[in-house]
């Protein structure tokens, strides 16, 4: 009996050690279209907040952004980086490419919205404040160079933001009436 218990404990311990936790991966991204240090810092802040990566740095002299995290975090960082590091006059990407499903979470997504009529940066910040206050999304970050807002939340929260964003992103003096959801 005692031997059986010992064997069982050994098996359990062995299987636990055998589960390799998602190991940290190091990755370096090279800035191609983003030259301004402030813009690079905004991309760094976005990756830290949305991909939840603490270990991320920018080297302006080398023009690189280095991150360290799990494979899921790195995948999200890559998605964010290449959606932000784009030519200044580039058209917004295909809307289908602007959503990223968080690894291992069925109801959590990251999403990027582009504002077209909102002059940066104060008005972009107002839009972010509205999203935080009304839809209760904590992780919302702006990239002012392309007037992009990246956020992370539930599918339902993203649907609410998708409804709200065009209603906030209107030229001054144009809107009238009310909209409901």
């Amino acid at each position, binding site marked *: 009996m005692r031997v059986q218990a010992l064997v069982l404990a050994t098996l359990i311990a062995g299987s636990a050690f055998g589960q390799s936790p998602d190991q940290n991966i190091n990755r370096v991204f090279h800035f191609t279209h983003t030259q301004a240090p402030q813009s690079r810092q905004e991309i760094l802040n976005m990756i830290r907040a949305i991909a939840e990566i603490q270990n991320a740095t920018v080297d302006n002299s080398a023009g690189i952004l280095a991150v360290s995290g799990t494979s899921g975090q790195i995948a999200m960082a890559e998605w964010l980086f290449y959606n932000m590091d784009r030519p200044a006059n580039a058209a917004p990407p295909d809307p289908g490419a602007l959503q990223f499903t968080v690894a291992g979470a069925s109801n959590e997504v990251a999403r990027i919205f582009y504002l077209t009529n909102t002059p940066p940066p104060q008005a972009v910040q107002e839009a972010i404040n509205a999203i935080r206050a009304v839809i209760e999304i904590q992780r919302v970050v702006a990239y002012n160079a392309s007037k992009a807002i990246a956020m992370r939340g539930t599918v339902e929260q993203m649907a609410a933001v998708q409804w709200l964003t065009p209603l906030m992103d209107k030229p001054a003096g144009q809107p009238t009436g*009310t909209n409901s959801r």
Partner: protein
Amino acid sequence: MKGIAPRSGTTNNIMRVFYLRHTETPQAMQEMVNLIRSLGEVQRVVVVNGPKALILRGSADQSALVDWLVQQLDKPPAAASPNTTAVAYQMAADPYSPPVVRLFYPSHIDSPQTLQEVFNMVRAATKIQRSVSYTPTNALALRGTGDQIARAEQILQERDKP
């Protein structure tokens, strides 16, 4: 576009966007937000200054009250007073919240300071907790029981004389 639609299968979670037409300054818009927060007990209400959008998330009752408040408050100053002395809104039955919301437009109180003095007097005499002065249209907004509102009206009639 008008109408109310529930959010994701619940009638207690409605989002609305109101575009203000006659409320011009950021300060006036913020006063309106403060009034809505206080009288409507609505926590999730913000204003976006560029498109002059007031964004709300709340229950159907809150949404209906805010709709009424925006219609009453978002007026040119000359249109809001003095012809209308008071307008009232009856809330849906709720044992935890005072049922009557009323806006007063005093005809002869024309300075913000005097309005504030009358406002303080009404609040002290009636013990109404939810009361806000709204300077862009020189209005007093109150929410209380029927008795409290009647007492407030009496005080205002006594004070609002040439």
